[in-house]
């Protein structure tokens, strides 16, 4: 009895989560401009029309550029922070790490408005770089979280062994540390890329004349006849995001397996 209720609850919950997203591909392939049931015929023309909008291409390129820059920068910063927090003890380590992780829960609209004020006050112009700066701010905590687990599961005696065998600290980093935390780095890059790609609020406040994809999509919602195209675009983005996240998770798990592998399952036979 109890089991049945729980099962029904689970199904409802999953429906609530994913049914709206499932509507995206349905209407993306629906041969009608109006988003309503009953469905018309099957068509691929919205995807074809996607290819005919130059402004959308520009927005997509902007987004990819910004996501790439933000995820690479955040991963580099995340690596430094993860390395410091897992290796060294320093005064006020906990509060410092806490403040670095804070943007995870800070309302983005606050971050966006504050950044906008600061940038305008400083006399700077809104551009790709302002969005990249904002995105680095929110992506870095994710990178730190992912990379901390990669560094924490790395046996320190591996690095000591490399130094003992004649390598310098730098070549040890290149030959041992880097390959072993690489899965974490890839995972951090992919997740950072995904977060930046679909981030709207900060991008909305900080974009100048060149919108990112989400900002562009928001602008297009004013034109009802374009909604099926947006549906098609949304479908592509959802598939892309899922792909990136799955890849990131795969690399993260492989990393932990590899780095932690030496102290488990080795003593038989």
């Amino acid at each position, binding site marked *: 009895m109890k089991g049945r209720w729980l099962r029904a609850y689970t199904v409802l919950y999953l429906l609530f989560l994913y049914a709206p997203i499932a509507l995206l591909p349905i209407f993306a392939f629906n041969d009608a401009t109006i988003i309503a049931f009953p469905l018309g015929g099957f068509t691929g023309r919205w995807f074809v029309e996607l290819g005919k909008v130059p402004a959308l291409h520009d927005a997509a390129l902007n987004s990819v550029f910004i996501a790439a820059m933000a995820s690479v920068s955040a991963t580099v910063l995340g690596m430094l922070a993860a390395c410091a927090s897992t290796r060294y003890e320093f005064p006020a380590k906990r509060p410092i790490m806490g403040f670095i992780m804070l943007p995870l829960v800070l309302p983005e609209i606050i971050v966006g408005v504050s950044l906008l004020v600061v940038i305008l006050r400083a006399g700077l112009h809104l551009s790709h770089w302002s969005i990249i700066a904002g995105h680095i701010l929110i992506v870095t905590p994710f990178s730190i979280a992912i990379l901390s687990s990669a560094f924490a599961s790395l046996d320190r005696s591996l690095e000591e*062994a490399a130094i*003992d*065998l004649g390598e310098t600290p730098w070549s040890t980093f290149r030959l041992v540390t880097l390959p072993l935390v690489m899965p974490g780095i890839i995972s951090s890059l992919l997740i950072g890329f995904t977060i930046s790609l679909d981030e709207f609020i900060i991008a909305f406040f900080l974009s100048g004349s060149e919108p990112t994809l989400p900002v562009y999509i928001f602008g297009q919602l004013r034109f009802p006849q374009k909604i099926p195209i947006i549906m098609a675009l949304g479908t592509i983005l959802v598939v892309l995001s899922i792909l990136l996240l799955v890849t990131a998770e795969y690399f993260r798990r492989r990393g932990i397996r*590899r*780095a932690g592998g030496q102290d488990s399952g080795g*003593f038989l*036979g």
Partner: protein
Amino acid sequence: MADPIIQLENVTKRFDDFEALKGVSADIREGEFFSLLGPSGCGKTTLLRTIAGFEAPTSGQVRIAGQDMAGVPPNRRPTNMVFQSYAIFPHLDVAGNVGFGLRRSPMSAAEKARAVDEALEMVGLAGYGRRAAHALSGGQRQRVALARALVLKPRVLLLDEPLSALDKKLREQMQGELRRLQRQVGITFILVTHDQEEALIMSDRIAVMFEGQIAQMANPEMLYRRPVSRRVAEFIGVMNFLPARVTASSPAGIEVEIAGLGRATLSGDSHAEAAPGEPPSVGIRPEMLTILFGNEPETGRVAEGEVREVVYYGDMTYYEIAIDGAPGTVTVSMRNLVNRPVLRRGERTRISWDERALILFR
């Protein structure tokens, strides 16, 4: 005798508010199998890491092959280390691990490959070169770690509790192999262990450490027979302690009155330090006490007592015996022979002993 390969002079190491090493001095000879033995937290691993260069001494000096090692990083010291976790690089295969240290060597690729093969053969892993690191058993990892360190032909090989992760049988096998390997390559091995039996079996010399200091440094036999303090005596093997009173003392000998054993005269040099604040006692090893079965004739001095506990090991039987007139019990070990019965709890028995086996702790 050969010159010391490692000279430690008054080495101290302080971590924040903890003093891990309190003035350690020792000479370690070229080609010997040297063990640092002590309970966990005694500073033995810190000392090993100081020799390797992973820790810098707070004061004092470490010299290797006559050279002061102050400021010399681990990668420029003629030492190599086998880590407790083995630290096998998980992203490299066996040959990649063993050949890791040869990357900077001027040898040709073919020479390096040959050196790797030789090292693997030396540790009994010939043909394992292409094996992935994660496909190795514990014993094999241990061997790869050894080959990886030995391929560089270090002057000193440092081993940090290398056998503690192995099960009993494999550990005993590796103890023999390590000893054989050390004789074969002839380089100095320094082993850190908390297992006194392991240290006794493998070492030429042992330094027993307590609380950041060397309590005694001697060969295994001296350490066992002539411990310098009650603490060392308790740490190495088993020793029985009986309360004793010194009645006369001269350079020729010490006369003592021992609870349960009576009067005895000890030679002038058979005494050691008691634990601080402890009254004097006399120590005797379990195998130095002999049970007289039935009406076996008496040899030496004899005491009587009652069997309180019997532990049968197959080849040996260990008895806990309450000697008349002595507090507590003493442990007596007897080899099981054809004509020897195993006594039962509650039986009365005679025990023979010899003055020469006694050590006075005061």
